[in-house]
């Protein structure tokens, strides 16, 4: 869901860059010795995840892992996404440097919000798989809605692109929900305190 250069209007680009900067600054401030390696691993996973395309029927999909990153990192997901998307833009020309702020905001903010939901659920429910799955799927849908919103503010019809994006990402949301569920239930078995940082 990288938005290409030259699609968005200036106000969207500027506000995206502003939110990304603020989020990244706050995320870096919150980093601790315990979360730096975690942030690095998540960043590497984000960087690689979108390179692996799986052909599913008519479209080809890839994982986003925003919800998982949100559960693991909270606000520190912003620097992780910034690094991953910056490298993708420079090395593969996915997206671009001008739209980097918007892309980071769309992906990271939806991931952070989905992560908060996941964390809140995990504290109440004793069903880590379910909580992880909800968070993972929410992250994908959130990203789709954010992308549709950025396109809408640049002149494209919101409803049409939102329906198209959410529809096309439904399989991704399901797969990502299952994967996030497995990872979260694995983590909650092996490291009970993984939410405490």
């Amino acid at each position, binding site marked *: 869901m990288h938005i*290409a250069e030259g699609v968005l209007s200036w106000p969207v680009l500027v506000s995206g860059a502003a939110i990304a900067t603020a989020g990244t600054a706050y995320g870096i401030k919150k980093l601790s010795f315990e979360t730096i*390696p975690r*942030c690095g691993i998540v960043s*590497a996973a984000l960087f690689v995840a979108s*390179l692996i395309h799986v052909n599913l029927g*008519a479209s080809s999909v890839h994982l986003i892992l925003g919800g998982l990153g949100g559960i693991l990192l909270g606000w520190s997901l912003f620097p992780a996404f910034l690094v*991953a998307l910056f490298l993708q833009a420079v*090395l*593969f020309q996915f997206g671009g440097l001008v739209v980097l702020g918007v892309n980071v905001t769309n992906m990271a903010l939806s991931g952070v919000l989905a992560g908060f939901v996941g964390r809140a659920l995990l504290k109440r429910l004793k069903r880590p798989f379910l909580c992880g799955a909800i968070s993972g799927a929410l992250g994908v849908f959130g990203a789709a809605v954010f992308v549709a919103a950025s396109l809408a503010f640049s002149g494209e019809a919101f409803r049409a692109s939102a329906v*198209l994006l959410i529809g096309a990402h439904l399989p991704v949301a399901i797969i990502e929900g299952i994967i996030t569920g497995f990872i979260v239930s694995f983590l909650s078995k092996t490291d009970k305190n993984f939410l405490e940082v």
Partner: protein
Amino acid sequence: MKGKRLTLTLLFCGILCLVFLAGAPTALAHRLNVFALLEGDCINGEAYFNDGSPAKDSKVLIKNSTGHVLAEGKTNENGQFSLKLSSPPTEAVTVIVEGGVGHRGETTVESPKNGKKLTTTTQVGLEAPEKTTVQDVPSAAIEEIIKNAVKEEMEPIRNELIKMNMELSKPKVTEILGGIGYIVGLFGVAFWVKGRSKNG
């Protein structure tokens, strides 16, 4: 009971997924590549996503350097397009393909700078051997025949070029590993800075 409910939910999701897949028209990729060639006063080309799938039914725009739209059209189901310009371009033109939902790709097509001179020289060359049968055939027709022959001969090379472009636009293992290396290094730097501020 719980297991049953889960199976039902999964089944429902699976069906929904299939329904949406059947109707999902666009491939969601990261980059839209455009490949275009100038042939006479036509611009022919292809648009495809970085995973190799064609950009179907996408809007194609041809603009000159001042942003004036020279031609407009759509790609077919194989991602190919062919747009006719009102006259052969005298300057480089930009071909823009809009794939919808944030996908956009563009490429620049250089115009043959000495294009006009070339045609005149061929015409001179044709007129030179006077009193031959060549003279009876109008030069425009000869030009057309030559153009078609060259086009036919060039077709495999053109396809090969598109294929090569497609291969080149895919991420390479070295780049991926390099990117991971950058990430490791960056977070190493973060550690270092954090450690220094703690000790100092």
